[in-house]
């Protein structure tokens, strides 16, 4: 009776947005008379951070401080149409729509500033701190606030913008499956280290090491949130969760949190993520979307690590102690595989 350590890996890619396109997003942006901007959307924040991603993309494009942008979502009376928050589409689709809207609003903002400064709008730049000035001559400047006041009360200009982003819908060929699917893909590779108890069949995830390529990272703290939370869900999917433990037999399923298994705060594994950025040509500032794929490589990496530890292939999820013990028994005992590499190069 022994605990066997094993190591497995998996590498994956993931498509960003509704597969065949045809999923538009719209955004509206306007300034109040003090140069504070509202981004009106119908996008949904289910925790993934849609509001903040939208805010950063709008602030960057407008060229104003992030505090001067507020994202108002979701109200169907004020926010224009958006397909929804699913298919890892939020950052990519909505982000692009916001860029369009913000560029239009920025155009009017600079026109208004140009009129006040009596210069060419093309010669103006923003400093991201609430000022607009002539390129190369910071002293010839006006604040965004003064510009907005002049636009509203003197010039009669609407500092506002509207935007839509749509990848046209693709057909699918019935015989070959030819199609124009997603335009952006994210990538990942994950290594899982596990220990398997050959007496109880229990798996402990010791640590995980991964690399994710996600296009442009819009907010690294929020990327970390997604990847860490998603990896936890990946462990849960791999080892714990299902409402039908004897699928396809539908009986004996859990009905509530007493019976539905998930790892608790005491079951989590140390996790290190390295993030690479290869910007998507059509993503907002090159952004893709990590929201869904962050659990995907964990499942096979753990399955492969279990095989490396005790020589049992579990091809039906979740990888329960029962399945592992049956496999060990069928093999006539644990059959550890070759050791792969040494101690991880982090913490």
């Amino acid at each position, binding site marked *: 009776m022994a605990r066997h350590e094993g190591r497995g890996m998996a*590498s994956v890619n993931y498509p960003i947005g509704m597969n065949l396109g045809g999923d538009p997003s719209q955004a509206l942006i306007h300034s109040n008379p003090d140069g504070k901007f509202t981004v009106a959307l119908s996008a949904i924040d289910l925790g993934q951070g849609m509001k*903040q991603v939208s805010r950063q993309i709008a602030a*960057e494009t407008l060229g104003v401080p992030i505090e001067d942008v507020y994202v108002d979502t979701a109200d169907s009376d004020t926010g224009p149409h958006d397909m929804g928050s699913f298919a890892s589409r939020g950052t990519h689709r909505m982000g692009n729509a916001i860029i*369009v809207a*913000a560029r239009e609003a920025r155009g*009017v903002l600079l026109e208004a500033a140009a009129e006040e400064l009596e210069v060419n709008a093309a010669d103006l730049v923003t400093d991201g701190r609430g000022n607009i000035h002539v390129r190369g001559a910071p002293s010839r400047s006006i604040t965004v606030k003064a510009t907005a006041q002049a636009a509203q009360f003197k010039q009669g200009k609407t500092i506002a913008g509207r935007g839509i982003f*749509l990848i046209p819908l693709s057909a699918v060929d019935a015989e070959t499956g030819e199609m124009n*699917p997603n335009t952006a893909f994210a990538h990942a*590779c994950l290594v899982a280290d596990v220990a398997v108890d050959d007496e109880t069949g229990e798996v402990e995830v010791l640590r995980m090491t991964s690399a994710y390529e996600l296009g442009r990272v819009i907010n690294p703290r929020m990327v970390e949130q997604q990847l860490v939370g998603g990896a936890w869900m990946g462990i849960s999917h791999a080892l714990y969760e299902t409402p039908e433990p004897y699928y396809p037999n539908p009986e004996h399923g859990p009905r509530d949190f007493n019976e539905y298994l998930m790892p608790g705060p005491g079951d989590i594994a140390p996790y290190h993520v390295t993030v690479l950025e290869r910007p998507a040509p059509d993503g907002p500032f090159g952004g893709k979307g990590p929201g869904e794929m962050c659990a995907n490589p964990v499942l096979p990496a753990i399955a492969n690590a279990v095989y490396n530890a005790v020589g049992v292939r579990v091809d*039906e999820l979740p990888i329960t102690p029962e399945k592992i013990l049956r496999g060990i028994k069928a093999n006539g005992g644990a059959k550890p595989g070759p050791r792969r590499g040494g101690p991880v190069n982090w913490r």
Partner: protein
Amino acid sequence: MLELRKDLFADERDDNLNVIGKGVQRQDMPGHVTARTRFFDDHAFDGMLHLKVVRSPHHHARIRSIDTSAAERAPGVKRVLRGADVPVNKNTLLSLINFGKDDEPSLAVSKVSYKGEPVIAILADSEAQALAARKLVRIDYDPLPAVFDVEETLKPGAPVVNETYPGNYFEYHERFDHQKLRFGDVERGFASADIVMEHRYQMSPIEHAPTETNGSIAAPEQNGRYVVHSCAQGLFFALGTTAKIVDVESNQLHFIGGTVGGGFGGKVDSLTEPLAVLGAMLTGRPVRFVLDREEEMLYGSPRGAERIYIKDGLMRDGRIVARHIRSYFDAGAYTRLSSYAAIKCTAHVPGPYWIPNVASDIYVSYTNRCPSTAMRGFGVTAVDFALEVQMDRLAEAASMDPMEFRILNAYRDGDMKPHRRAAKNTALVECVQVAAEKANWPLSEQAKRASSLIGGGAGERAQIPATQLDARGQIGRPDTRSGPVTQVLPAGTSRIAPSKQPVMEGARDGRATPTQVPRYEPQRPTAPPPPAYQPAPPPYQPASSYSPAPGHQPASPPPASPPPAAPAQTQHGAVRFSSVFGTRRR
């Protein structure tokens, strides 16, 4: 712990940005930590009714009769709803994008197809009263044989789960009982391989288990409108679905949401909004319909199960030369979104690798269980599990290190994918290299030198090969699931027009320019009648263009009269969609 590797692909990025890339605080975080964030259920209404549904205790049964008289007389009960009360009692979620036939009632009428299917809705002054009245509803069922296995259900003689799809499969292109992918000649690939390996994989259903259960509150507003506080993952998706089912114009519904207590795909199905609105319309009172935890767990639509068979042809040097995937999505009793997942899965095959001969057959099977829906990684998570365990097996069979094996077979920029589009912007090789380095997993010098930028698209890697076609799996003809090759498409054949550029309103190059502000002009008395098509206003042409946002190239000047790109292409897309999937919106 997160570490950014800025050195990789650095020449493809301009990192001189102001707030993009900064780990600034979330806009919603102060609300979360002070409990001021308002979720759908955090709204008070006076005189609110509570809605509870009576669910089927059977997996599959005819409904002989329903008696609600005792429930209607129960204390606090204000209204009892049956299927006949629902204006449009048949819908499929993707009818909003013209995909698939309406197949699911809001309240079952003549039969139930899964355990937990809603039959009757009760509206009462309190939750306790609604729950008490639920026990008084008498439904006489005639149980039917049920089927739970995704392959058994496709066999002749299996009980018909969903009358809209009598073969128990989703119908693709009005022709086939599955979605095909054909690229090259897999049979020749297997014949030429040193090793051929086939394995079966399965993922059981998974529950989203958001801490906030599905629900909504609908209340009469002014002017015949209804406000709906919703946890929907797509606000207009839910609004459109509700408007169709309760048969009102979309501007009679005022949906408020956007702040959701976890979704993971489990809040796309509009499980509660239509009945809540219908209840508010029929009673004139605010109506709250919230699933309890057991309902969420059992009937809140899970991630569907999948069964996947992968067959690979492998050379001793580690190259995969052929891959065939046969997969079955378990839709449960109704389609919801599974039909789309199969398409997404088809595009994902064969994973992030370049393989010269690839085919797949992806089925959506109906079974007598709760309809499944999207979940985090929909259409991809289960197949990735299967593919990557299979890759581990293949590496072992080729006596190769699993990392080196991935790098050898990884797709690179310029490689042709089986759906006949070239890969670009790839980075799998680099992810493997970096993960190996951090995990202290040794790689050969050759593997360390590999790059997503090198070697892709060389020779046959960029080509669409001659491809074997077949007519297997015709609708209603299970006998045709095997059959001969009917045609060989010549190399280089493409039948679907390449993707158009994304539409970003305002300019053709994908970058917005401000449009002219309309100015008031007095109406000319002799103005000609407006043409049928109003050309877009001329693009804004200031004396000189404004300064571009940081990190962007200046917009190139737009053409003098841009075509009405967005509307035309939207229309085109909608038409194409209905023709592709053979069903028009009803």
